[in-house]
């Protein structure tokens, strides 16, 4: 057990810091504002990282990586500390590319992995459907043989970033006679192909990160298939397990911001920061944030000793999402009636907290609901039996509802 950098790690951290400082300076000269929402800036930053082999440090060396999990952690710590532009590439690099590396042909890998790493191409995931959320293997999008290729028709939903994506990883049903898990096949699609219609979903936050994607007779070639026909579920599990690795970060306002807000609210003891009930809660949020960070560090050690990311990774998002919900609800109440204002002209912190309050419910659902994550922990870590399944051995076309 050692929470300090070894001399080699300290040297690596110094090298990373110097690189970040120099490159962010140049980026700032190029763009006046490094706002995280700007895709152009994010692409430019991603390209710099890819060139310096910092974009995905743990990837195989031929794909621009070659470093260790600890080096990746050091880079991420330093990068998040210095206000570098983030976002846009997480789904492609974190979920889709690892799936391609494992299952796609060498041609497909060559064509996509490099451009995705450099931020030239953005990927989204086309898995969920209106009638297949937690039960994703219940999906109905149809893949029908069409000459040498396939014809795809159906409706996808909750596709994060589909509206700015170039390509999508698509799971479809190629065999309606097989049981539900055995009739699926994975493909990649060009999001600009004829027959694809992308409609942003208006979320309860007012924003639109997720999309509905309608596919009507989209023609795709057989070399767009990833993995064998009928083995799409096996491919999808790899994508989903990589999703768990991405999810366990502290969300919402920083502890400093929380404390700053509390100090601005009067209370019987002076300010809310002096209120014993608030302080007990603050300690809990502090502990949860540190617990998440330290748990991620522990999984790093496991990874660097050769373990593969396992179901134990599911605890991160479960804790982070419920923590965000608790703290946004409490921080609004601590402001009493003033917490009702989401108007940025008046609200504390410009209304960010009210936004996060409305965002927290989606975090408990997206990327595996709380309930699914608890099932995964119970079944795959603790070895408890699966739920009674009435649908597993039955031909998909004979299932009802």
């Amino acid at each position: 057990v050692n929470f300090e950098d070894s001399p080699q790690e300290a040297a690596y951290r110094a090298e990373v810091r110097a690189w970040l400082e120099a490159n962010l300076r140049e980026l700032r000269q190029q763009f006046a504002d490094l706002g995280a929402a700007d895709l152009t800036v994010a692409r430019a930053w991603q390209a710099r990282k890819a060139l310096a082999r910092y974009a995905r440090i743990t990837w195989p060396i031929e794909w621009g990586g070659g470093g260790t999990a600890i080096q990746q952690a050091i880079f991420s710590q330093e990068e998040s500390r210095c206000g570098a532009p983030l976002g846009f590439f997480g789904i492609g690099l974190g979920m889709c590319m690892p799936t391609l590396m494992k299952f796609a042909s060498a041609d497909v890998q060559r064509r996509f992995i490099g451009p995705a790493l450099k931020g030239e191409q953005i990927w989204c995931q086309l898995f969920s459907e209106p009638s297949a959320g937690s039960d994703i293997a219940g999906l109905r999008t149809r893949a029908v043989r069409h000459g040498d290729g396939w014809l795809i028709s159906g409706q996808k939903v909750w596709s994060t970033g589909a509206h700015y994506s170039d390509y999508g990883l698509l799971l479809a049903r190629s065999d309606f006679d097989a049981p539900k898990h055995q009739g699926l096949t994975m493909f990649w699609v060009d999001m600009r192909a004829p027959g694809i219609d992308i409609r942003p979903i208006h979320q309860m936050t007012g924003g639109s990160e997720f999309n509905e994607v309608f596919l009507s007779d989209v023609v795709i070639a057989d070399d767009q298939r990833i993995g064998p026909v009928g083995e799409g579920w096996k491919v999808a599990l790899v994508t989903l397990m990589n999703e768990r690795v991405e999810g366990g970060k502290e969300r919402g306002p920083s502890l400093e911001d929380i404390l700053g807000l509390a100090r601005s609210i009067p209370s019987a003891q002076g300010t809310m920061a002096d209120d014993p009930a608030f302080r007990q809660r603050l300690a809990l949020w502090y502990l949860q944030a540190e617990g998440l960070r330290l748990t991620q560090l522990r999984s790093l050690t496991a990874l660097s000793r050769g373990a593969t990311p396992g179901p134990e990774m599911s605890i991160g998002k479960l804790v982070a999402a419920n923590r965000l919900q608790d703290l946004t609800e409490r921080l609004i109440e601590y402001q009493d009636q003033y917490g009702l204002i989401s108007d940025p002209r008046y609200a504390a912190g410009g209304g960010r907290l009210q936004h996060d309050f409305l965002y927290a419910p989606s975090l408990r659902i997206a990327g595996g609901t709380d309930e699914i994550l608890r099932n995964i922990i119970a079944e795959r870590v603790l070895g408890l039996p699966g739920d009674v399944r009435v649908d597993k051995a039955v031909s998909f076309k004979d299932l009802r509802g």
Partner: protein
Amino acid sequence: MDFDFSEEQAQLKSAARRFLSARCPLSLVRATLGEDPARRASRALFEEIAALGWCGAAIPEASGGLGLGYVELCAIAEELGRALAPVPFASSIYCFAEGVMAAGSAEQRSRLLPRLARGEIVGCLATAEGSGAYQHRSTSCHVEAGRLHGVKIPVVDGDVADVALLLATEAQGASLFLADLNHPGVQRTALQSLDPSRGVARLSFSDAPVERVGGAGQGSALVERIFDRAAGLIAFEQLGGADRSLELARDYALERRTFGRPIGSYQAIKHRLADMYVKNELARSTAYYAAWALASAAPELPRAAAMARVAASDAFGFAARESIQIHGGIGITWEASPHLFFRRARHLSVVCGAPAGWAERLAADLCKRTPAPSSGAEAA
């Protein structure tokens, strides 16, 4: 960076587990709910443990210990907690020996540490004098001319300990003193204990000879230092107990059937077990952080210990309570094991200060490290 036990530490840990599963079955723990023969059995267990060198794991070789280090002691603590070992190890080692190492003179260290390491004497720490945290009470125990008068209640393991470190006032304020509990000026009354595998006593001192440990008036600061160290180590005992509670509940949920299937296949049960696992893992992460802070004498120790203390108390309390619930009716019987963990969980959550006080310390730490921007002058 390395966030797990090393291979050697893991080997020590599994050797400890093998030893304790052979020599400290839950039947031995349950026997302490009864009478005196069990006391003798747990005394014998303590002697065996001492013979293995565990008491001296973190005591330097020069002072008669093994000098292995704190991470090794944490590994042992986790196994003792798993086994619910009915021994005064925590009092003697995490509290008393740590106090001697933190504040004792060279003479006190060389007189006491070798005997503690060999398990020849058992120490304890006496801070409580009634209900409520000791920090919020005035200390009535007082020392005049090297003689102590007053009452400490309760003193954990005070029924079996030979020596105590205790907080008492003298002319210069509250100081830490060392008392020989076998002196005729000490009247010991063993009390019924919520967790009979760990005794509690009332100690009444009348003209009992004592010697000061550490500086005059430094008593409260020293107790805080001892508690920081004890909290980190006790967190591992809590973690061990929490893991075992989860395992017992999981095993029962796999075996017990209702309505034609194992209760462990119902989400109401599965999700509770998953919640136990989540709490245990967060507690484990913070406990490892505390182990590192102890081993490297890091300035982060008070913060790391507070986190480990709050997380591990929460995890063990939840796992022990919900384990009874998952066991159903059998879980509330005397003969079943869950109540042994339920008792120990509460014992450990108050033994070096209840979690709310530690949470307040965490909040205070965060406030101190995050000065209010506009009131910089006030803060300075």
